[in-house]
């Protein structure tokens, strides 16, 4: 084993550093000036092959050969320099890879560049009031217009993250009511700026409301061009399962977890509890899991770099991260003590500066609960580990469903 990235990667790292020193000097720029500067910076980073590496040049990407180590070096160096990276969000993480794999040329032309430049923001229109874990039961209805050029959509989507900012939605819609459950769904793209779409923010348990919460969407004869349908009619379920290859393997979430753990240790120090043997014991116990997650991320990353299958462990990463988040929350809640009785100003992303003081941990304490729900509830993760990972027989209810 060897955790160094090798001479070639280190030479590349130097090159990236030189670029960053020369090109990312935001200085005193603020507001729109900073935004402009960041935009120009991103464009030159794309020219150098540092961002949007899996996106072809004609769609605004830098079209680089797959190289997870280079991608990681870039993330590390950009992170250290606090330089703008890819815009992130559902659009870059889900829409773009899906379109690259399954989209038509017209769809790629229309959407990819505008998405990576941050002009189009995508909501994920999967969940409905009646369909969450059982996603393939979606009922939002799509019917062809009489001239066959448009899908007419009626129904409701819910829990859409970034819904208030979204300009577009990728969604699962039932278009073949008579077909078997998984074979009656079509994957559509929709412009949300139209009369048939109503959106409403839903206040979250964190107290968050307004622009930054998840939303619900009502569709009343909303329209999506048939040309914006991704994949075959009725095949939307399978389009949504498109595995996203590219350079997904990264140790980004491990770095995030590591810095969260360091902050937890700092919290224990600030609160004068770091000498308490019970606190030290719990910290070290949590760190055992944090490090397991970190080194397993290295393992996945190493397998990806070598083009080898890491096996079932990759199915465990989401649940592992969720559970560690709960452990962190429980200890943080002990540590902040009475401070937890006062909700900090700016909690839940409200306010310009974000919360200060020990009670700012309320954000993590409550937010960690979202992880056991969003992106597949923890029980669903356990089903996946048990059935796909360990080869246990499928649940009868689900095996028998039509």
């Amino acid at each position: 084993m060897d955790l160094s990235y090798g001479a070639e990667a280190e030479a590349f790292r130097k090159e990236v550093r030189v670029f960053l020193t020369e090109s990312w000097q935001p200085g005193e720029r603020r507001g729109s000036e900073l935004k402009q500067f960041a935009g120009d910076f991103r464009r030159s980073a794309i020219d150098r092959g540092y961002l949007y590496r899996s996106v072809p040049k004609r769609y605004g990407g830098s079209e680089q050969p797959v190289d997870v180590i280079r991608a990681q070096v870039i993330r590390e160096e950009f992170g250290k320099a606090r330089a703008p990276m890819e815009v992130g969000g559902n659009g870059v993480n889900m829409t773009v890879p899906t379109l690259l794999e399954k989209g038509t040329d017209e769809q790629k032309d229309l959407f990819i560049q505008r998405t990576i430049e941050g002009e189009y923001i995508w909501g994920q229109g999967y969940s409905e009031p009646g369909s969450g874990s059982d996603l393939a039961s979606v009922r939002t209805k799509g019917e062809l217009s009489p001239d066959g050029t448009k899908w007419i959509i009626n129904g409701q989507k819910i829990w859409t993250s970034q819904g208030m900012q979204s300009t577009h939605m990728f969604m699962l819609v039932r278009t073949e009511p008579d077909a078997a459950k998984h074979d009656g769904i079509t994957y559509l793209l929709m412009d949300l700026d139209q009369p048939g779409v109503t959106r409403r923010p839903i206040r979250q348990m964190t107290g968050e409301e307004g622009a930054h919460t998840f939303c619900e969407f009502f569709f009343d004869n909303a329209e999506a061009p048939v040309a914006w349908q991704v994949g075959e009619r009725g095949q939307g379920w399978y389009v949504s399962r498109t595995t996203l290859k590219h350079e997904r393997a990264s140790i980004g979430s491990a770095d995030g977890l590591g810095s969260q753990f360091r902050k937890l240790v700092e919290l224990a120090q600030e609160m004068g509890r770091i000498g308490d043997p019970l606190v030290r014991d719990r910290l070290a116990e949590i760190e055992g899991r944090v490090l397991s997650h970190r080194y397993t991320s290295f393992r996945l990353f190493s397998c990806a770099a070598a083009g080898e299958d890491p096996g079932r462990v990759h199915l465990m990463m989401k649940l592992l991260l969720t559970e560690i988040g709960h452990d962190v929350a429980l200890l943080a809640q002990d540590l902040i003590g009475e401070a937890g009785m006062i909700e900090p100003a700016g909690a839940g992303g409200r306010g310009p500066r974000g919360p200060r003081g020990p009670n700012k941990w309320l954000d993590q304490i409550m937010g960690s609960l979202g992880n056991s729900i969003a992106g597949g509830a923890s029980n669903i993760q356990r089903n996946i580990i048990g059935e796909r990972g360990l080869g246990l027989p499928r649940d009868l209810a689900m095996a028998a469903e039509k």
Partner: protein
Amino acid sequence: MRFHLSEEQVAIQDAVRGTLGDCWGMEQLHKFAGGDDDFDPASWETLMSLGIGGLALPESEGGAGLGLLDAALVCEVAGEKAAPGPLIGQILTAIAVANCSDAETRNLLPRIASGELVSTLALDSDLVQSARAAHLFLTDDGAGGLRLIEAGDGVTIEAVIATDRSRPVSRVQFGDVAVHPICAAGDPLVQRIRDAALVLIAADALGGAQHCTDISVDYAKERTQFGQPIGRFQGLKHQLAQMALDVEPSRALVWYAAYAWDANLPDATRAAAMAKAHLCEVYTRTTRAAIASHGGIGYTWEYGLNYWFRRSVYDRAWLASPAQHRARAAELAGW
């Protein structure tokens, strides 16, 4: 950058697994557990014939030129099979002697590496595995250094009923004994050997925990109740998933600790403490969950799961408990 096993490392594990499988199954385990011996020459010779005694020694010392990581991979398989014999003591003794400067002690190395001299670990406790069969005891010198004690005169061995039937211990006292010095207090080798011991115990725990998970999953596919395999019931399925979630990611913790030791990284001592603490917790949880997941058969002697449970008791207590190592890890982090 490489942080997964090489083909060669997988092959080493497969070879040890295959070889042990041929000579150490449930039948032998039961027989050994029911007998009076604290050592099984047949399986020992088989393991030693694979060169495991000298695995972590440089080629110039007649070893395989591999590292602690490779030794840990072997100990993992030993844990999986609940293999007898002081494998961890043997490997550590070989490393210690190869790194010592006492010429007379070093003369023993070829016979240690070949497994002809059996050496067991007698550190921090008077409960010592395979004490009656051992030729050598790797122990401290009372002042913080390390030494080897020769079996025979001055070594008093008192029988006890050992909890871990796969690695029976006895109570050992050292009186006026024949000694081979290894190193004095303050020599970095002392800490290196202690760290390596923790890594190898963690590896044994990993192998045992993985084995308990695997047989529980297999059983859940075969056993039927209510007209279906019990593994279909979500309650059990989720318990099994949780066991796998506990074990599989912690594998990388053992790899890291062994790698840190091999590369002599600054955090090697702490990594060893974390690995020992975490894996022994995992092992305890997993053996308990495995027995529960089997129902009545799991509670029997005959089925044999108890051997791994008992082994988890040994690994957990050996060279200090998880909580003690977490306290060390906290100290080492400067908290």
